[in-house]
């Protein structure tokens, strides 16, 4: 393998647009540039293609096209969902910043998680009082890869909704899930997930950035965040992003088609990387559930307590490997990742943690090479800190 090859292992942060997706999008940036709301034939064609993209997206997740709001990414979709809630909002403590920040503007409470990041169901049951109008729990966490038992949560929500109704309560109760990190690994079908709202992003599935969607069940009145021309049924004003929607539809179709096979492939590579690193550094700690089924297959959150991830990232960058530390937001704000705090990771574990995420372009050779380069960087930094690379303890 070429020792100078750049190896990108941060697919949970961004994915390259797939060539087929790009090809599908390009005509809408030039020849088919028309405003879909305009009355003439050419514009009507753009509108038709846009609506077809909506139908294709809906089809992929088992939804009706009219229940989809196409918007500018998962952050907006999450904000739309939470902003539309009546009553108190319950969000998982490990949710993405967009969910946490939107909830902060409302009466809200955080649902705690266990050490592996799984929702604390007992506490959730207690928090689920008659004042609660919305629960938001992501299908899979993008930092440590924990997959949530969303169907169990949906069951609990259905029971409570029933008893609330029986008691004459008027407050609706909805379950929202941000599935943007899960699409490459899990089947996304709104009916079988039994959720009321669902967020997806094109940017994590080899589609364009700043394109996403919120699916909302019939009867949920989504409150617009933007006022204007009344596009998307008056819920999301702004000229429709035809190229984005078409690209999103292609990307989602491809993700669905390749999901099982690709997830299996990535899991194999991830397990191999994990094994090699743990063999070389038995003192390293892997976060997230132990059971493979409960953890995103292409994600490895590994910590080297005693070392600083900020430095490891630079050492790896010098060796041509791009990885994340904790969550991207936490890194730029220089405080401990809220996810690691929520699961109760020790500060040394949080400081020394790397998030390595795999994607379709990553090959077996890449992983072999990455394992060697990461291993060398960790070893060098451990030595410099006066630690024995075999034990992680003072040499």
């Amino acid at each position: 393998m070429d020792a100078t090859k750049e190896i990108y292992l941060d697919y949970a942060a961004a994915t390259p647009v797939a060539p087929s997706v790009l090809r599908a999008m390009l005509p809408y940036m030039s020849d088919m540039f028309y405003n879909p709301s305009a009355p003439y034939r050419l514009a009507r064609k753009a509108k038709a293609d846009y609506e077809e993209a909506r139908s294709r997206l809906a089809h992929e997740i088992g939804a009706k096209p009219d229940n989809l709001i196409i918007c500018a990414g998962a952050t907006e979709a999450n904000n739309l969902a939470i902003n539309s809630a009546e009553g108190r909002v319950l969000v998982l403590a490990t949710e993405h910043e967009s969910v946490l920040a939107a909830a902060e503007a409302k009466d809200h409470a955080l649902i705690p998680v266990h050490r592996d990041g799984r929702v604390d169901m007992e506490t959730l049951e207690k928090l689920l009082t008659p004042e609660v109008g919305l629960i938001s729990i992501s299908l899979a966490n993008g930092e440590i890869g924990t997959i949530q038992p969303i169907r169990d949560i949906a069951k609990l929500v259905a029971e409570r909704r029933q008893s609330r109704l029986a008691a004459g309560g008027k407050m609706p109760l909805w379950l929202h899930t941000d599935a943007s990190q899960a699409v490459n690994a899990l089947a996304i079908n709104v009916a079988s997930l039994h959720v009321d709202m669902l967020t997806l992003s094109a940017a994590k599935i080899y589609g364009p950035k700043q394109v996403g969607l919120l699916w909302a069940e019939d009867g949920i009145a989504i409150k617009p965040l933007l006022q204007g021309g009344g596009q998307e049924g008056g819920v999301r004003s702004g000229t429709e992003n035809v190229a984005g929607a078409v690209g999103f539809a292609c990307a989602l179709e491809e993700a669905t088609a390749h999901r099982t096979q690709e997830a299996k492939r990535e899991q194999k590579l991830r397990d191999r990387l994990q094994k090699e690193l743990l063999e070389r550094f038995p003192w390293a700690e892997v976060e997230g559930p132990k059971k493979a089924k409960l953890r995103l297959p292409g994600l490895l959150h590994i910590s080297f307590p005693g070392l600083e991830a900020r430095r490891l990232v630079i050492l790896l960058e010098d060796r041509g490997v791009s990885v994340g530390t904790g969550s991207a937001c936490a890194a730029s704000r220089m405080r401990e990742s809220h996810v690691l705090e929520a699961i109760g990771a020790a500060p040394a574990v949080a400081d020394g943690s790397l998030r390595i995420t795999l994607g379709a372009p990553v090959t077996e050779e890449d992983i072999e090479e990455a394992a060697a380069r990461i291993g060398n960087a960790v070893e060098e930094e451990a030595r410099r800190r006066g630690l024995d690379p075999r034990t992680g303890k003072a040499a």
Partner: protein
Amino acid sequence: MGKKVFLGMSGGVDSALSCALLVEQGFDVTAVYMRNWSKDLPGFKCPWAEDLADAERVAVKLGVDLEVWDCEKEYKETVADYLVDAYAHGYTPNPDVMCNQTVKFGTFAERAFKEGADLIATGHYARTAPALTDGGPARLLRSADEHKDQTYFLWRVPGTTFNRVLFPVGGYSSKTDVRAACAERHLGIETKPDSDGICFIGPVGIRTFLLDTLEKRAGDIVEWETGKVLGHHEGAFLFTVGQRKGLDLGGGPARYVVATDTKENVVYVTADKMCPGLWTKEHTLEDCHWIPGTAPEAGECLVRTRHTGPLREARLSVSEDGKSATVSFTEPVRTVAPGQSAVIYRGLECVGGGIIAPDPVMKPRI
């Protein structure tokens, strides 16, 4: 291992080279990034995350530990609040002087020595010379590069602190050489532009910063000579003596601020470049500080009233308690806004200085 040095590292060129030089000289270096306070204002983007990343890259390259120390509280209380308070009272302060006294050579130095540092270092353009007497305070000298010299910002630091301070780039004769030395060492930072302005204010400017804390208050702009109202302003605290821009008097000759009265909220201006309010033959200094610990003897000295400003010959006399002083010039010099620092030199040595007091001649004459 050599002596233990804690180096203040900002992510800039000067402290990066300082780090490399200390490592080459065999010191046991710990780099420290001091996280300062910054205001959450619209349009204000504090670059500290990028600066920290730059500092980290250099530290990794040199194999040096980088710690991040949270200096937000000291910074907010002793620098930012002081700045606003001074402006509210009609002074134009030098926040960098405060920052060096209370944060860099205050909190940082204290904590570094507590954590076992033998010495501290910064990327300032300045030099030190050994004490004249055994165990006495070290002396502060201007840097080899007279254009970059930063002793103007260091006059409130006691000489006893300088006994344990290193300025690794103080001997470089130009910034070009410093950048070249960075490039030679492949620090990857040699093209980073110099930072200027007040770090916690940055691009939003002092006006936006002050108006976020202090209330706008409509007042008159008055002609100094005639007492005639020429226009209006939004708060006398927003103006500085000598200021020409931003008066918005709708044409006419260029006018200069000669005095501000923050109590009565009046700004006095003149169109006469020779107006006595714009010139003075002496500065009265308050709140003086002397680096050796005792006031210098009266006599000839060199005075600098702004960073990189000219070094002017003057005569210094100091009050008995050393807390105030006067510098007199043979020829009139431009007045300096009250609150600015006047820094006193004897030859290359910076002996201390004081805060320029409001000009007694310029008390409102209505």
